[in-house]
Protein backbone atom coordinates (compact mmCIF):
# COMPACT_ATOMS: atom_id res chain seq x y z
CA UNK A 1 0.00 0.00 0.00
CA UNK A 2 1.24 3.51 -0.84
CA UNK A 3 2.22 5.46 2.26
CA UNK A 4 -0.39 8.25 2.48
CA UNK A 5 2.19 10.57 4.05
CA UNK A 6 4.60 10.36 1.14
CA UNK A 7 2.59 9.31 -1.92
CA UNK A 8 2.91 11.20 -5.20
CA UNK A 9 1.03 14.44 -4.76
CA UNK A 10 1.94 16.76 -7.60
CA UNK A 11 -1.62 17.83 -8.36
CA UNK A 12 -4.84 18.12 -6.36
CA UNK A 13 -7.70 18.93 -8.74
CA UNK A 14 -10.62 20.88 -7.22
CA UNK A 15 -14.04 19.63 -8.38
CA UNK A 16 -17.33 21.25 -7.33
CA UNK A 17 -19.29 18.57 -5.49
CA UNK A 18 -22.65 19.49 -6.93
CA UNK A 19 -21.77 19.10 -10.60
CA UNK A 20 -22.31 15.55 -11.92
CA UNK A 21 -20.76 16.56 -15.25
CA UNK A 22 -17.50 17.62 -13.58
CA UNK A 23 -17.49 14.65 -11.19
CA UNK A 24 -17.97 12.27 -14.14
CA UNK A 25 -14.93 13.69 -15.91
CA UNK A 26 -12.64 14.59 -13.02
CA UNK A 27 -10.49 11.49 -13.16
CA UNK A 28 -9.52 11.60 -16.83
CA UNK A 29 -6.83 14.28 -16.72
CA UNK A 30 -4.35 12.35 -14.60
CA UNK A 31 -4.42 14.42 -11.39
CA UNK A 32 -2.74 12.61 -8.50
CA UNK A 33 -5.60 13.60 -6.17
CA UNK A 34 -9.11 14.83 -6.83
CA UNK A 35 -10.76 17.04 -4.26
CA UNK A 36 -14.54 16.88 -4.34
CA UNK A 37 -15.66 20.12 -2.77
CA UNK A 38 -18.75 20.67 -0.66
CA UNK A 39 -17.37 23.82 0.97
CA UNK A 40 -16.72 27.13 -0.78
CA UNK A 41 -17.91 26.18 -4.29
CA UNK A 42 -21.34 25.12 -3.01
CA UNK A 43 -24.04 27.64 -2.04
CA UNK A 44 -25.59 27.13 1.42
CA UNK A 45 -28.90 26.11 -0.19
CA UNK A 46 -27.23 23.12 -1.93
CA UNK A 47 -24.94 21.78 0.81
CA UNK A 48 -27.42 18.96 1.60
CA UNK A 49 -27.63 17.63 -1.96
CA UNK A 50 -23.93 18.16 -2.72
CA UNK A 51 -22.84 15.98 0.18
CA UNK A 52 -25.22 13.21 -0.95
CA UNK A 53 -24.00 13.45 -4.56
CA UNK A 54 -20.34 13.23 -3.51
CA UNK A 55 -21.05 10.28 -1.21
CA UNK A 56 -22.91 8.38 -3.93
CA UNK A 57 -20.15 9.10 -6.46
CA UNK A 58 -17.55 7.69 -4.06
CA UNK A 59 -19.66 4.61 -3.32
CA UNK A 60 -20.37 3.76 -6.93
CA UNK A 61 -17.21 4.72 -8.81
CA UNK A 62 -13.63 3.58 -8.67
CA UNK A 63 -11.28 6.54 -8.99
CA UNK A 64 -7.66 6.15 -10.11
CA UNK A 65 -6.67 9.27 -8.20
CA UNK A 66 -6.57 9.68 -4.45
CA UNK A 67 -10.03 10.87 -3.36
CA UNK A 68 -10.33 13.88 -1.07
CA UNK A 69 -13.53 15.52 0.17
CA UNK A 70 -13.38 19.10 1.37
CA UNK A 71 -16.02 19.40 4.06
CA UNK A 72 -17.41 22.52 5.65
CA UNK A 73 -15.74 23.44 8.91
CA UNK A 74 -17.21 21.25 11.68
CA UNK A 75 -17.36 23.97 14.37
CA UNK A 76 -17.33 27.26 12.47
CA UNK A 77 -20.32 26.26 10.26
CA UNK A 78 -23.56 24.32 10.86
CA UNK A 79 -22.77 21.95 7.95
CA UNK A 80 -19.50 20.20 8.77
CA UNK A 81 -20.74 17.50 11.15
CA UNK A 82 -23.55 16.49 8.76
CA UNK A 83 -20.99 16.45 5.94
CA UNK A 84 -18.88 13.96 7.89
CA UNK A 85 -21.89 11.77 8.77
CA UNK A 86 -22.77 11.46 5.07
CA UNK A 87 -19.26 11.34 3.58
CA UNK A 88 -17.38 9.02 5.94
CA UNK A 89 -19.45 5.88 5.15
CA UNK A 90 -18.50 6.45 1.48
CA UNK A 91 -14.83 5.91 2.41
CA UNK A 92 -12.86 8.73 0.76
CA UNK A 93 -9.06 8.49 1.09
CA UNK A 94 -8.86 11.88 2.80
CA UNK A 95 -11.06 14.43 4.50
CA UNK A 96 -9.88 17.96 3.84
CA UNK A 97 -10.50 20.21 6.81
CA UNK A 98 -10.62 23.84 5.65
CA UNK A 99 -9.67 26.92 7.67
CA UNK A 100 -7.94 24.83 10.33
CA UNK A 101 -6.90 26.91 13.31
CA UNK A 102 -5.94 24.43 16.03
CA UNK A 103 -5.19 20.76 16.55
CA UNK A 104 -8.44 20.21 18.52
CA UNK A 105 -10.33 20.58 15.22
CA UNK A 106 -8.21 17.81 13.71
CA UNK A 107 -8.87 15.64 16.78
CA UNK A 108 -12.62 16.14 16.39
CA UNK A 109 -12.57 14.94 12.77
CA UNK A 110 -10.13 12.12 13.57
CA UNK A 111 -12.45 10.91 16.34
CA UNK A 112 -15.41 10.68 13.94
CA UNK A 113 -13.25 8.84 11.39
CA UNK A 114 -12.07 6.35 14.04
CA UNK A 115 -15.70 5.60 15.00
CA UNK A 116 -16.68 5.03 11.36
CA UNK A 117 -13.70 2.75 10.73
CA UNK A 118 -14.50 0.70 13.83
CA UNK A 119 -18.20 0.46 12.91
CA UNK A 120 -17.36 -0.89 9.44
CA UNK A 121 -14.40 -3.05 10.44
CA UNK A 122 -12.05 -1.01 8.24
CA UNK A 123 -8.34 -0.97 9.13
CA UNK A 124 -7.20 2.08 11.09
CA UNK A 125 -5.94 4.75 8.69
CA UNK A 126 -8.38 3.85 5.90
CA UNK A 127 -9.42 7.51 5.96
CA UNK A 128 -6.87 10.22 6.75
CA UNK A 129 -6.82 14.00 7.01
CA UNK A 130 -5.38 16.93 5.10
CA UNK A 131 -5.75 20.38 6.65
CA UNK A 132 -5.72 23.75 4.97
CA UNK A 133 -4.18 26.72 6.71
CA UNK A 134 -6.12 29.83 5.77
CA UNK A 135 -5.55 32.27 8.64
CA UNK A 136 -2.78 33.78 10.75
CA UNK A 137 -4.03 31.85 13.78
CA UNK A 138 -3.83 28.59 11.83
CA UNK A 139 -0.35 29.47 10.62
CA UNK A 140 0.87 30.08 14.16
CA UNK A 141 -0.47 26.64 15.18
CA UNK A 142 0.66 24.80 12.07
CA UNK A 143 3.39 22.70 13.72
CA UNK A 144 0.95 21.27 16.24
CA UNK A 145 -1.69 20.79 13.51
CA UNK A 146 0.79 18.84 11.33
CA UNK A 147 1.43 16.47 14.22
CA UNK A 148 -2.33 15.92 14.74
CA UNK A 149 -3.93 12.46 14.47
CA UNK A 150 -4.31 11.02 10.94
CA UNK A 151 -2.56 14.02 9.41
CA UNK A 152 -0.94 13.04 6.11
CA UNK A 153 -0.81 16.39 4.31
CA UNK A 154 -1.06 20.12 4.81
CA UNK A 155 -2.11 22.78 2.32
CA UNK A 156 -2.15 26.53 2.08
CA UNK A 157 -5.45 28.26 1.27
CA UNK A 158 -4.24 31.63 0.06
CA UNK A 159 -7.39 33.62 -0.61
CA UNK A 160 -8.64 33.66 2.98
CA UNK A 161 -5.08 33.98 4.28
CA UNK A 162 -4.27 37.14 2.34
CA UNK A 163 -7.60 38.64 3.38
CA UNK A 164 -6.58 37.92 6.98
CA UNK A 165 -3.24 39.67 6.61
CA UNK A 166 -4.90 42.58 4.76
CA UNK A 167 -3.15 42.41 1.41
CA UNK A 168 -3.75 40.95 -2.07
CA UNK A 169 -2.24 38.32 -4.39
CA UNK A 170 0.70 39.55 -6.46
CA UNK A 171 2.48 37.93 -9.38
CA UNK A 172 5.75 37.72 -7.45
CA UNK A 173 4.10 36.16 -4.37
CA UNK A 174 5.89 38.07 -1.60
CA UNK A 175 2.65 38.15 0.43
CA UNK A 176 2.68 34.34 0.75
CA UNK A 177 6.41 33.80 1.24
CA UNK A 178 6.33 33.56 5.04
CA UNK A 179 3.19 31.37 5.10
CA UNK A 180 4.54 29.01 2.44
CA UNK A 181 7.90 28.68 4.21
CA UNK A 182 6.33 28.12 7.63
CA UNK A 183 3.85 25.49 6.39
CA UNK A 184 6.58 23.72 4.45
CA UNK A 185 8.91 23.52 7.48
CA UNK A 186 6.08 22.19 9.64
CA UNK A 187 5.22 19.56 7.03
CA UNK A 188 8.82 18.44 6.72
CA UNK A 189 9.23 18.25 10.49
CA UNK A 190 6.11 16.07 10.73
CA UNK A 191 7.03 13.99 7.67
CA UNK A 192 3.84 14.77 5.74
CA UNK A 193 3.00 16.11 2.27
CA UNK A 194 2.85 19.83 1.57
CA UNK A 195 0.54 21.22 -1.14
CA UNK A 196 0.39 24.76 -2.42
CA UNK A 197 -2.69 26.91 -2.93
CA UNK A 198 -4.67 27.38 -6.17
CA UNK A 199 -3.90 29.97 -8.81
CA UNK A 200 -7.31 31.18 -9.94
CA UNK A 201 -6.57 33.02 -13.20
CA UNK A 202 -6.72 30.04 -15.54
CA UNK A 203 -6.01 32.26 -18.56
CA UNK A 204 -2.66 33.43 -17.19
CA UNK A 205 -0.61 30.30 -17.69
CA UNK A 206 2.68 32.20 -17.68
CA UNK A 207 2.28 33.38 -14.08
CA UNK A 208 0.95 29.95 -13.14
CA UNK A 209 4.10 28.36 -14.57
CA UNK A 210 6.30 30.80 -12.61
CA UNK A 211 4.38 30.12 -9.42
CA UNK A 212 4.65 26.34 -9.81
CA UNK A 213 8.40 26.61 -10.49
CA UNK A 214 8.78 28.75 -7.38
CA UNK A 215 6.90 26.41 -5.04
CA UNK A 216 8.64 23.35 -6.51
CA UNK A 217 12.01 24.97 -5.82
CA UNK A 218 10.90 25.86 -2.30
CA UNK A 219 10.24 22.17 -1.65
CA UNK A 220 6.47 21.71 -2.00
CA UNK A 221 5.17 18.30 -3.11
CA UNK A 222 2.54 19.75 -5.41
CA UNK A 223 -0.04 22.33 -6.34
CA UNK A 224 -3.81 22.65 -6.12
CA UNK A 225 -5.40 22.96 -9.57
CA UNK A 226 -8.74 24.30 -10.76
CA UNK A 227 -8.50 23.52 -14.48
CA UNK A 228 -7.27 20.43 -16.36
CA UNK A 229 -4.74 22.48 -18.35
CA UNK A 230 -3.01 23.41 -15.08
CA UNK A 231 -2.45 19.70 -14.30
CA UNK A 232 -0.33 19.23 -17.40
CA UNK A 233 1.96 22.14 -16.52
CA UNK A 234 2.47 21.01 -12.93
CA UNK A 235 3.28 17.45 -13.96
CA UNK A 236 5.74 18.73 -16.56
CA UNK A 237 7.51 20.97 -14.04
CA UNK A 238 7.55 18.32 -11.32
CA UNK A 239 9.01 15.65 -13.61
CA UNK A 240 12.83 15.52 -13.54
CA UNK A 241 14.61 16.28 -16.83
CA UNK A 242 16.59 13.63 -18.71
CA UNK A 243 19.82 15.33 -17.63
CA UNK A 244 18.79 15.26 -13.96
CA UNK A 245 17.80 11.59 -14.19
CA UNK A 246 21.05 10.58 -15.91
CA UNK A 247 23.10 12.39 -13.27
CA UNK A 248 21.06 10.86 -10.44
CA UNK A 249 21.57 7.37 -11.86
CA UNK A 250 25.32 8.01 -12.05
CA UNK A 251 25.41 9.25 -8.44
CA UNK A 252 23.49 6.22 -7.15
CA UNK A 253 25.66 3.80 -9.11
CA UNK A 254 28.88 5.39 -7.80
CA UNK A 255 27.50 5.37 -4.28
CA UNK A 256 26.54 1.69 -4.50
CA UNK A 257 29.99 0.91 -5.86
CA UNK A 258 31.70 2.86 -3.06
CA UNK A 259 29.67 1.04 -0.40
CA UNK A 260 30.52 -2.30 -1.99
CA UNK A 261 34.24 -1.54 -2.18
CA UNK A 262 34.28 0.21 1.18
CA UNK A 263 35.56 3.45 -0.38
CA UNK A 264 35.38 6.54 1.84
CA UNK A 265 35.22 9.41 -0.62
CA UNK A 266 33.54 9.33 -4.01
CA UNK A 267 33.22 11.82 -6.85
CA UNK A 268 30.94 12.05 -9.88
CA UNK A 269 31.94 14.34 -12.77
CA UNK A 270 34.61 15.87 -10.54
CA UNK A 271 32.23 16.74 -7.71
CA UNK A 272 32.36 15.12 -4.30
CA UNK A 273 29.29 13.05 -3.40
CA UNK A 274 28.00 12.87 0.14
CA UNK A 275 24.84 11.76 1.98
CA UNK A 276 22.41 14.56 1.03
CA UNK A 277 23.40 14.32 -2.64
CA UNK A 278 22.64 10.60 -2.63
CA UNK A 279 19.27 11.24 -0.97
CA UNK A 280 18.45 13.88 -3.59
CA UNK A 281 19.49 11.56 -6.41
CA UNK A 282 17.22 8.84 -5.06
CA UNK A 283 14.35 11.34 -4.87
CA UNK A 284 14.87 12.34 -8.51
CA UNK A 285 14.80 8.68 -9.60
CA UNK A 286 11.67 8.06 -7.49
CA UNK A 287 9.93 11.14 -8.97
CA UNK A 288 10.82 10.05 -12.50
CA UNK A 289 9.53 6.54 -11.92
CA UNK A 290 6.36 7.91 -10.32
CA UNK A 291 5.81 9.99 -13.45
CA UNK A 292 5.97 6.81 -15.51
CA UNK A 293 9.55 7.13 -16.76
CA UNK A 294 11.48 3.89 -16.93
CA UNK A 295 14.76 4.36 -15.10
CA UNK A 296 17.33 1.61 -15.27
CA UNK A 297 20.12 1.62 -12.75
CA UNK A 298 23.72 1.32 -13.88
CA UNK A 299 25.83 -1.36 -12.31
CA UNK A 300 29.57 -0.92 -12.18
CA UNK A 301 31.75 -3.86 -12.99
Amino acid sequence: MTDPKTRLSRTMMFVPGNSPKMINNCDINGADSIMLDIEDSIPVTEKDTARILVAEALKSRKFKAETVVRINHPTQTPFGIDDLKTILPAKPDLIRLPKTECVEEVELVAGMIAEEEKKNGWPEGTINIICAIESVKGLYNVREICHGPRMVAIALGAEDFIADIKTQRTKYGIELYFARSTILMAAREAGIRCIDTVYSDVKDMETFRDEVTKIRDMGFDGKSCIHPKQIEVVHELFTPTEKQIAHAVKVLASYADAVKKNKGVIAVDGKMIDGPIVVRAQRIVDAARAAGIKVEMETKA
Partner: protein
Amino acid sequence: MKGWRSMKNIVSAATAGFMEKNDVLVTVEPSQKGIEVELTSDVERQYGEHMRDLIRDTVKEAGYDNVKVTATDKGAWDYTIIARVLGALQRGGQA
Protein backbone atom coordinates in the same frame (compact mmCIF):
# COMPACT_ATOMS: atom_id res chain seq x y z
CA MET B 1 -30.27 -2.13 7.40
CA LYS B 2 -32.77 -4.62 6.04
CA GLY B 3 -35.83 -6.03 7.75
CA TRP B 4 -39.00 -4.47 9.06
CA ARG B 5 -39.26 -0.81 9.72
CA SER B 6 -42.10 1.66 9.57
CA MET B 7 -42.40 3.36 6.20
CA LYS B 8 -41.77 7.07 5.97
CA ASN B 9 -43.94 9.48 4.05
CA ILE B 10 -43.22 12.73 2.27
CA VAL B 11 -44.44 15.78 4.18
CA SER B 12 -44.26 18.24 1.31
CA ALA B 13 -43.23 18.38 -2.34
CA ALA B 14 -39.48 18.88 -2.80
CA THR B 15 -36.94 19.04 -5.59
CA ALA B 16 -33.25 18.18 -6.03
CA GLY B 17 -30.89 18.39 -8.99
CA PHE B 18 -30.70 20.68 -12.00
CA MET B 19 -31.67 20.72 -15.67
CA GLU B 20 -28.03 20.43 -16.65
CA LYS B 21 -25.98 17.93 -18.64
CA ASN B 22 -25.41 14.66 -16.74
CA ASP B 23 -27.86 15.73 -14.02
CA VAL B 24 -31.49 14.86 -13.33
CA LEU B 25 -34.14 17.12 -11.83
CA VAL B 26 -36.15 15.08 -9.34
CA THR B 27 -39.37 16.18 -7.66
CA VAL B 28 -41.06 14.12 -4.98
CA GLU B 29 -44.58 14.70 -3.69
CA PRO B 30 -47.06 12.84 -1.49
CA SER B 31 -49.18 10.25 -3.28
CA GLN B 32 -51.92 7.80 -2.35
CA LYS B 33 -50.83 5.12 -4.80
CA GLY B 34 -47.58 3.69 -3.45
CA ILE B 35 -44.45 4.63 -5.39
CA GLU B 36 -45.19 6.26 -8.76
CA VAL B 37 -42.46 7.26 -11.22
CA GLU B 38 -42.87 9.70 -14.06
CA LEU B 39 -39.74 9.90 -16.21
CA THR B 40 -38.68 12.11 -19.11
CA SER B 41 -35.38 11.27 -20.78
CA ASP B 42 -33.75 11.38 -24.20
CA VAL B 43 -32.55 7.83 -23.58
CA GLU B 44 -35.87 6.55 -22.29
CA ARG B 45 -36.14 3.91 -25.00
CA GLN B 46 -32.77 2.37 -24.09
CA TYR B 47 -32.60 2.95 -20.34
CA GLY B 48 -36.12 3.96 -19.25
CA GLU B 49 -36.91 0.70 -17.52
CA HIS B 50 -33.58 0.60 -15.72
CA MET B 51 -33.97 4.20 -14.55
CA ARG B 52 -37.51 3.67 -13.30
CA ASP B 53 -36.43 0.55 -11.38
CA LEU B 54 -33.46 2.43 -9.92
CA ILE B 55 -35.68 5.29 -8.76
CA ARG B 56 -38.26 2.91 -7.27
CA ASP B 57 -35.57 0.85 -5.48
CA THR B 58 -33.90 3.98 -4.11
CA VAL B 59 -37.19 5.24 -2.67
CA LYS B 60 -37.91 1.82 -1.14
CA GLU B 61 -34.37 1.41 0.26
CA ALA B 62 -34.67 4.85 1.87
CA GLY B 63 -37.80 3.58 3.64
CA TYR B 64 -40.41 5.73 1.89
CA ASP B 65 -43.82 4.82 0.52
CA ASN B 66 -46.66 6.75 -1.13
CA VAL B 67 -44.34 9.01 -3.12
CA LYS B 68 -44.78 10.33 -6.61
CA VAL B 69 -41.40 10.91 -8.25
CA THR B 70 -41.13 13.09 -11.34
CA ALA B 71 -37.69 12.89 -12.96
CA THR B 72 -36.40 14.91 -15.91
CA ASP B 73 -33.16 13.28 -16.98
CA LYS B 74 -30.34 15.00 -18.84
CA GLY B 75 -28.03 12.03 -19.16
CA ALA B 76 -27.42 11.29 -15.47
CA TRP B 77 -25.32 8.30 -14.42
CA ASP B 78 -26.82 5.92 -11.87
CA TYR B 79 -25.09 7.47 -8.84
CA THR B 80 -26.52 10.88 -9.75
CA ILE B 81 -30.05 9.49 -10.07
CA ILE B 82 -29.73 7.83 -6.65
CA ALA B 83 -28.27 11.00 -5.10
CA ARG B 84 -30.96 13.30 -6.49
CA VAL B 85 -33.78 10.99 -5.39
CA LEU B 86 -32.27 10.75 -1.88
CA GLY B 87 -31.76 14.54 -1.82
CA ALA B 88 -35.38 15.24 -2.77
CA LEU B 89 -36.67 12.68 -0.25
CA GLN B 90 -34.58 14.19 2.51
CA ARG B 91 -35.90 17.64 1.70
CA GLY B 92 -39.52 16.52 1.34
CA GLY B 93 -39.38 14.34 4.42
CA GLN B 94 -38.56 17.27 6.65
CA ALA B 95 -41.52 18.90 8.38
